[in-house]
């Protein structure tokens, strides 16, 4: 009961306070990799906590014992006690529904997002096969289109796609920067990270934290690829390529947001070249991320872990009498149980 309350409370805390705080933080621009891990850990951990919290309501915690018969008896007693009064049964029912619903919804949405992506990519790849022509010198598929655009098609047969408009708008160094950026997406399998965050957002459309996690993972994946591109190309060439293609990109149907654009922010970040997070701060961040994930798992598995620390086996000295007691018959079970 306490574990269930702790888990559900933790999920609520992550979604209501953790996500807004992470969205407001300024360090993610300096450590996009850590920030992607933090967002995925936050979203995944919240979903897992709700599931485990539901399970914790169903299964009352029982002190784990090395003695199987003892454990079973304890289980039966605890289960009987919980289901004896109607409130307990109702709570357990609600917990079961919660755990099942969350698991089913997340699995369904993840499967749907991944298969929809794979299908759309296959169709798009066929289309590219018809209208595009591979350019082995660039290692990309070029398509005749006046609008400048560059993107990559992830998955099995990876492809970088460039329009003729993009090639015309870029100089040599900028073109290399674009290719390095898109290949970093493919190498890092960023589409999987974005898809996972997207699946959670699709599973719980009413919860803003999941939508925020999806947007932020998508944004940070771009920063990650920008950083990878600067490792291979001059920083200002990456910035120049972004500016050249961004300024020539068509106005989106939704219109431009007020203030600066996301791509503009990436250009400013490349020009300013913020120092990456210090080693100590990154390590602390990684520990925090690990703790985010570990908390629900440890809380749910708490009783079992606590039992590991206990000395439920008879000491070596006591082993002989204990064995004797066991052979003496059923009375021995009671003696052993009392000893634990």
């Amino acid at each position, binding site marked *: 009961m306490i574990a269930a309350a702790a888990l559900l409370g933790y999920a609520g805390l992550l979604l209501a306070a953790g996500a807004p705080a992470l969205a407001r933080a300024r360090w993610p621009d300096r450590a996009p990799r850590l920030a992607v891990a933090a967002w995925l850990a936050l979203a995944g951990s919240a979903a897992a906590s709700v599931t485990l919290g539901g399970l914790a309501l169903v299964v009352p915690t029982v002190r784990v014992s090395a003695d199987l018969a003892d454990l079973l008896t304890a289980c039966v007693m605890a289960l009987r006690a919980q289901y004896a009064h109607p409130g307990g049964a109702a709570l357990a029912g609600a917990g079961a529904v919660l755990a099942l619903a969350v698991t089913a919804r997340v699995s369904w949405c993840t499967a749907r*997002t991944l298969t*929809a*992506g794979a299908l*759309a*990519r296959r*169709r*798009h790849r*066929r*289309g*590219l*096969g*018809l*209208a*595009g022509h591979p350019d082995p010198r660039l290692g990309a598929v070029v*398509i*005749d*289109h006046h*609008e400048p*655009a*560059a*993107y*990559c*098609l*992830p998955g099995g047969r990876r492809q970088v*796609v460039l*329009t003729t408009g*993009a090639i015309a708008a870029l100089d040599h160094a900028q073109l290399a920067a*674009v290719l390095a*950026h898109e290949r970093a*997406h493919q190498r890092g399998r*960023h*589409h999987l990270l*974005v*898809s996972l965050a997207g699946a959670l957002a699709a599973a719980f459309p009413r919860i803003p934290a999941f939508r925020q996690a999806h947007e932020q993972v*998508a944004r940070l994946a*771009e920063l990650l690829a920008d950083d990878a591109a600067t490792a291979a190309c001059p920083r*200002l060439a990456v*910035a*120049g*390529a*972004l*500016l050249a*293609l*961004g*300024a020539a*990109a*068509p*106005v*989106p*149907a*939704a219109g*431009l947001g007020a203030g*600066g*654009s*996301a*791509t*503009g922010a990436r*250009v*400013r970040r490349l*020009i300013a070249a913020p120092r990456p997070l210090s080693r100590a701060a990154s390590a602390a961040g990684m520990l925090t991320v690990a703790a985010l994930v570990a908390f629900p798992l440890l809380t749910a598995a708490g009783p079992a872990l606590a039992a590991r620390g206990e000395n439920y086996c008879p000491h070596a000295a006591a082993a002989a009498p204990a064995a004797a007691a066991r052979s003496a018959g059923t009375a021995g079970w009671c003696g052993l149980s009392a000893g634990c």
Partner: protein
Amino acid sequence: MRGFGELEAAIMDRIWSADGPLLVREVHATLRPERAYNTVLTVVEILYRKGWLTREKEGRAYRYRATATREDYAAGLMGEALDASTDRAATLRRFAERIGPDEAGQLHEALEQARRAGERR
């Protein structure tokens, strides 16, 4: 399957580059490496049924024409891949999203300054 896709692409390429509608025999004659006539005929009919080609009767044969120009087809394909209103499950984001003209002007200036600072150093 891969070979089939390549043949589809080669046939569409011939039809798109031609001045007018083509007979299957004419498509077949220009394909390199040479393919069996019946294979070409089958694939052309598949493309017709999929809606990529239209045809008009000429004597006992059909003349085939693409339903959209290569440019229109490419534009449709790009729109599908990059349209901001769909969730773009197929591709990652395009390399750069739109930067408005005012912002682009400021960024050009900032970039120019950074370049000059870099040269001086």
